[in-house]
């Protein structure tokens, strides 16, 4: 908990508390590989001392490695940016610093956030702290691992199709994909702009809310941000709370996940929540629509990486076409290249209408369906992930299997609504998360609900023994 750190600093001083963090990181990191870059200890201690008077008193945080950090290498898990050191801070980083947070390191991720396991990272996969043979989810896997193993209390992730919620679910922690436009994307290396948001990850509901409060809000540097009322005083009572359960999504989940979900739903019922099964519809079209949009945007966003101004620029001789091609051929991994190729194909003349425009239509239909459900329900509930954390290597070679893992989570990205993953139980020692989706801009409403849920699940501060 953040408050533990504050107490530590008040009682023992910054140097002692941060040294303790480093002891833990040094011990666990070789097994877990949560970080791509760790800032050295003295620098972190110095930085923390400089912001000691601010609210977070130098609290070390972990930041996903696709968020631009001035002077700290930002790789996106890619060889393309393996030596790229940004000259500017993302807006969220500025906001964290203004509240007194210090960056401990940059966390491992699937290359350019394309993946659900961290296995596409150029730097190698992270491990699930609950079972080192399993994946931690992705793409913000490193952030999930870093908080689950209590190396840090809070971390930033980014979520394009579930990249915060998947690792939150697989690591037994909390993660919010905020409403689109509530958190500035300035400084987030774009994968699919219209879908993604930076979001908070934490070990309990209260820290999750604190982190979201700090990073959210209108930003003049991001034209897609919105001004919204940060009202935090909504009183949530589970008694009489109307919850719609996505039947069609539940049915597609593994029996193990269904099993944990059922007992969670029973708990909610016993608190007086009104639970009703609802159908989302378009279930066979959601993933294709999501991937068409994501890959199209990715093919455009990743065009800038040619090795000229920054990034992997091994080849300097020859014509510019030869140079660009060689740098991109070696700088990108195969998953990224696959998505760029597919996205370029989709956007090309003649196919644009057949794929991209149709995907936008499906996106609109899914939004209508979700809005409709939320007219008569306070929130929508489903498992966060349809399966338990798979073993390393199990899904990486089967793209359809890997993409299918995202079915439950992509709905919130397609529709822009907030979605949060909360730990609700274990199946044979592996954590299972539930996902609540709420109305657009009702992020604080959702976070307050999470606090209530945490009270009945008593699942906060879960730490595996490694």
């Amino acid at each position, binding site marked *: 908990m953040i408050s533990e750190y504050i107490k530590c600093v008040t009682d023992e001083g910054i140097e002692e508390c941060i040294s303790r963090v480093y002891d833990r990181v040094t011990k666990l990191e070789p097994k877990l590989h949560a970080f791509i870059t760790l800032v050295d200890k003295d620098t972190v201690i110095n930085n923390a001392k400089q912001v000691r008077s601010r609210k977070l008193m130098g609290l070390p945080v972990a930041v996903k490695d696709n968020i631009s950090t001035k002077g700290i290498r930002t790789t996106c898990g890619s060889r393309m940016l393996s030596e790229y050191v*940004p000259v500017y801070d993302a807006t969220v980083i500025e906001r964290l610093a203004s509240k007194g947070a210090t960056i401990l390191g940059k966390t491992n991720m699937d290359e350019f956030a394309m993946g659900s396991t961290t296995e596409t990272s150029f730097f190698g996969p992270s491990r699930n702290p609950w079972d080192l043979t399993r994946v931690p989810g992705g793409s913000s896997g490193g952030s999930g691992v870093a908080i689950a193993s209590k190396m840090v209390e809070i971390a930033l992730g980014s979520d394009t199709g579930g990249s915060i919620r998947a690792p939150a679910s697989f690591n037994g922690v909390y993660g919010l994909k905020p409403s689109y436009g509530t958190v500035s994307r300035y400084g987030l290396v774009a994968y699919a*702009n219209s879908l993604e948001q930076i979001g908070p990850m934490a070990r309990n509901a209260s820290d999750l809310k604190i982190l979201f409060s700090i990073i959210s809000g209108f930003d003049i*540097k991001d*034209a*897609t941000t919105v001004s919204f009322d940060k009202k935090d005083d909504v009183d949530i009572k589970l008694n009489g709370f109307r919850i719609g359960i996505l039947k069609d999504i539940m049915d597609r989940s593994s029996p193990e996940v269904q099993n944990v979900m059922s007992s969670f739903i029973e708990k909610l019922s016993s608190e007086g929540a009104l639970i009703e099964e609802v159908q989302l519809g378009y279930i066979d079209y959601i993933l294709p629509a999501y991937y068409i949009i994501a890959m199209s945007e990715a093919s455009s966003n990743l065009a800038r990486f040619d090795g000229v101004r920054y990034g992997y620029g091994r080849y300097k001789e020859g014509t510019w076409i030869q140079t660009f091609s060689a740098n991109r051929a070696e700088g990108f991994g195969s998953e990224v290249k696959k998505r760029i190729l597919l996205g370029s194909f989709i956007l090309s003349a003649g196919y644009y209408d057949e794929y991209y425009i149709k995907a936008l239509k499906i996106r609109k239909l899914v939004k209508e369906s979700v809005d409709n459900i939320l007219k008569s329900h306070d929130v929508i509930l489903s498992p966060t992930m349809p399966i338990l954390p798979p073993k390393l290597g199990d899904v990486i070679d089967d793209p359809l299997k890997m993409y299918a893992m995202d079915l439950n989570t992509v709905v919130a990205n397609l529709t822009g609504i907030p979605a949060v993953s909360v730990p609700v139980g274990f199946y044979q020692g592996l954590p299972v998360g539930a996902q609540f989706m709420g109305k657009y801009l009702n992020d604080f409403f959702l976070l307050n609900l999470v606090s209530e849920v945490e009270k009945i699940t008593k699942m906060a501060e879960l730490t595996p023994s490694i």
Partner: protein
Amino acid sequence: MVKIGLEVHVHLNTLNTKLFCSCSSNYEDKEPNTNVCPVCLGLPGALPVVNERALTMAVMVATALHMEISHILSFSRKHYFYPDMSKNYQITQYDGPGSTAIAYNGWIEINGKKIRIRRINIEEDPAKSIYPTGSILTSKYTLLDYNRSGIGLLEIVTEPDLENPKEARQFMEVLRSILEHLDVTNFELEGAMRADCNVSVEGGERVEVKNVGSPKDAEAAIAYEIARQNAALRSGVKIRRETRHWDSIRKVTVPLRSKETEEDYRYFPDPDLPPYYIPHETIDKIIKSMPELPESRIDRLIKQYGLDEYQAQVLVYQKQLADFFEEAAKEYKQYKRLANVIINEVQRRLNEREIELKNSKLSTEHLIKVLAMEDNGSISVKTMKDLIPKIIDGIDPEQYVIQNNLLIITDVTALENVINSVISKNIEVVRKAKQDPKVVDFLVGMVMKEVKKRANPKQVYELIQSKLREIS
């Protein structure tokens, strides 16, 4: 038949900032790559935010060009890899699903003929390429200067309605005048206006000529291209679709790349710049606040100063001449004469020196002094004309005529001395003159030559006549 269409790119360099970031829109005299930020360098994670004054400028231009204005401001990405592109896509406006150009279907009138304008759109400029060891085709390497990257551009696309090089030049001059009157572009800054000229002659395909930097160059490049294409066709060579480069020093076009197929730019709406609805009231407000346009200024100059249409057009199509004329007209009331001197004498001398009025030292005060001296008979017409280059250099004309003895001699005694001297040297002629009045003119000429034309011939004629009467 020749078909010419233009794509004119104009820098919105009076925006103060670049189109999507807060770097300055004026990069002149700046060290390379110092007018840059994460946004215009295309650094990972940087996002564009549009300077909304670009909308105001586009709406004003659209109105001046009689266009239909879109009610949505939206941007698309145009994808192509090229070294001068910071993101390998250009943020522009495109007519497609979810996006639109800012205005469509306008026209400009040239010599009573309407040249149709297909559309105008707002877009960003790429970085500037520098070829240190030669030209675009021969340099061993290329340097990139991102100071220009992200500057706002207005692209103005015509229909292929232009029929000859002169018309293309006139079109660009009129367009430039409109943009100057709207204060959208400062044409004194480098690269303020560039055109891609599409030229096709009968029996050949369309050839695009890039890098044309002025109305004068447009005329030259198109004339060259028409001649080249015709010559090729006559010798049996086919004209295929291609892109050529205008070499403004050698005054030739050189091949850049062939266009075998239509390039696929994979346009799609930029997700970082959500489209927004432009309310009617906003557009009305912009239109109401517009400054005077060339068309109405021409009408006004005709009515207010009694100029003829030709004079008014020449002045207005070079806004600085019109501004200069109106400034001088506050003091000098012989308007038509003033206009003539500006159009003929002043402009000719400026052209000789290849400088713009704004960059010369010419003041209205000096020009008025020159005209007044001629009006009151202190200097001759010739001296007046000779004084124009002097005042362009900032020389005070009154002092100059005194120092150089250019004032007309009106003093009778002085003139009589000259006449006496001429007569005494030409006794034979004087005799003839008494019989034949035509010979008197010869004597007048002799005297005028003697005083270097600084006398009134009529006065000299009368003085000689009375002298002749004396002699008899």
